[in-house]
């Protein structure tokens, strides 16, 4: 597991290393980064818990009362990013900004607040939505990238990232097609640049369109590329929307291995014409690329459902939810702290155009599928 897993997980490093040689990371730098991260997270928690009451009778009270914690977390992360970059410290401290770790831990804990019956009844439509959406969006992105003359490897990265799960998918695809590091950096940065506004826009659009919570969650989960951004948008849209968004995104994540294995075979047999796919066990390949946190998410739901059914206290589940919120805050602050636009500027307009068009298709098709498959869906208490 170690080699492939480590490669797949190195989202932050590969994004930053592509542009310029980064200063070496040290244990001291990582500890200092952790202090900054926890301090910002504490401010987010404080703002979320006190600001609505403190501004209740003021002119901004109405606006503040509808702002959810992901908004504070991302904005403070971006502010911290700006300050640390100006001070020349960001890369030294970046070992602590582990968005992937925090978001996956938060999602495992989120599993405890979702009744197993909800996951079981959502599984069928979630798989249908994931397969149809991934096929259409992947196919469209691959086709448009070809029309605009993009390199096949970059097409594969963009198509996988926009249709499945953003940075993780791009990293898996980069390993599958042996893409250049700059291509991975472009794609990873594009994912973040597009995901950030989506976090705020999709819940607003869902509310403006009057979507049911389940439909809004399914739309957000099927649409926004990174799992962290999906969770942030879901949290803004509402608890039921968050649960559905997490189920949909976990389903897409689970399909990542299938697409990565298919890409490996396609590039070996068709694009590079090696005559044979690499001599590896496909079953082993699928397992290595399977996101293990999805198993944790399911296990947490089973444990909590059994715990409550056997007379366990709901207060304990509330404490788990608070813990989940803490990890999600750490993840959202990390998103802001990791954000970089330089690789996108270096990419030129064509990959950006392809990604933008694919995002548009994803938005429209995803809305149609979410409305078709999840209208009237009941989230179990």
């Amino acid at each position, binding site marked *: 597991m170690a080699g492939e897993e480590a490669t797949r997980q190195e989202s932050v490093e590969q994004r930053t290393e592509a542009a310029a040689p980064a200063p070496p990371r040290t244990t001291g730098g990582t500890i200092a980064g952790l202090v900054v991260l926890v301090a910002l997270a504490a401010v987010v928690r404080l703002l979320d818990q006190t600001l609505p009451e403190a501004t209740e009778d003021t002119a901004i009270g109405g606006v503040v009362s509808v702002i959810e914690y992901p908004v504070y977390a991302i904005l403070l992360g971006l502010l911290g990013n700006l300050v640390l970059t100006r001070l020349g410290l960001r890369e030294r401290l970046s070992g602590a900004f582990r968005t992937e770790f925090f978001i996956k831990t938060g999602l495992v804990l989120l599993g405890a607040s979702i009744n197993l019956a909800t996951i079981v009844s959502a599984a069928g439509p979630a798989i249908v939505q994931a397969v149809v959406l991934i096929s259409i969006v992947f196919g469209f992105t691959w086709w448009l990238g070809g029309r605009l003359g993009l390199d096949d490897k970059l097409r594969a990265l963009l198509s996988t990232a926009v249709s499945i799960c953003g940075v993780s998918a791009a990293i898996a695809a980069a390993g599958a097609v042996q893409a250049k590091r700059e291509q991975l950096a472009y794609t990873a940065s594009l994912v973040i640049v597009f995901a950030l506004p989506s976090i705020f826009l999709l819940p607003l659009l869902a509310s403006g369109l009057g979507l049911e919570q389940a439909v809004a969650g399914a739309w957000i989960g099927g649409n926004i590329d990174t799992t962290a951004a999906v969770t942030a948008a879901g949290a803004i849209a509402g608890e039921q929307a968050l649960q559905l968004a997490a189920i949909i995104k976990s389903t897409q994540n689970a399909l990542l291995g299938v697409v990565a294995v298919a890409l490996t075979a396609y590039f070996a047999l068709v694009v590079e014409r090696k005559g044979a796919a690499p001599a590896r066990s496909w079953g082993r390949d699928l397992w290595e690329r399977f996101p293990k946190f999805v198993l944790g998410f399911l296990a947490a739901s089973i444990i909590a459902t059994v715990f409550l059914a056997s007379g366990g206290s709901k207060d304990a589940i509330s404490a788990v939810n608070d813990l989940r919120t*803490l990890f999600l805050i750490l993840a959202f602050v990390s998103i802001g702290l990791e954000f970089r636009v330089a690789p996108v500027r270096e990419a030129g307009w064509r990959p950006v155009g392809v990604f933008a068009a694919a995002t548009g298709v994803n938005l429209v098709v995803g809305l149609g599928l979410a409305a078709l498959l999840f209208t009237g869906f009941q989230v179990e208490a």
Partner: protein
Amino acid sequence: MSSRRPVLGEDWAATITGLVLLLLVLAGVIPGWVVP
């Protein structure tokens, strides 16, 4: 590159951390008031 990081992937680490925390809270080892 892989020699710089632990053998345990971030994916597994997050999964184990989440489940261990869940079990500790449900078992009452981590009481609710400890979580800010």
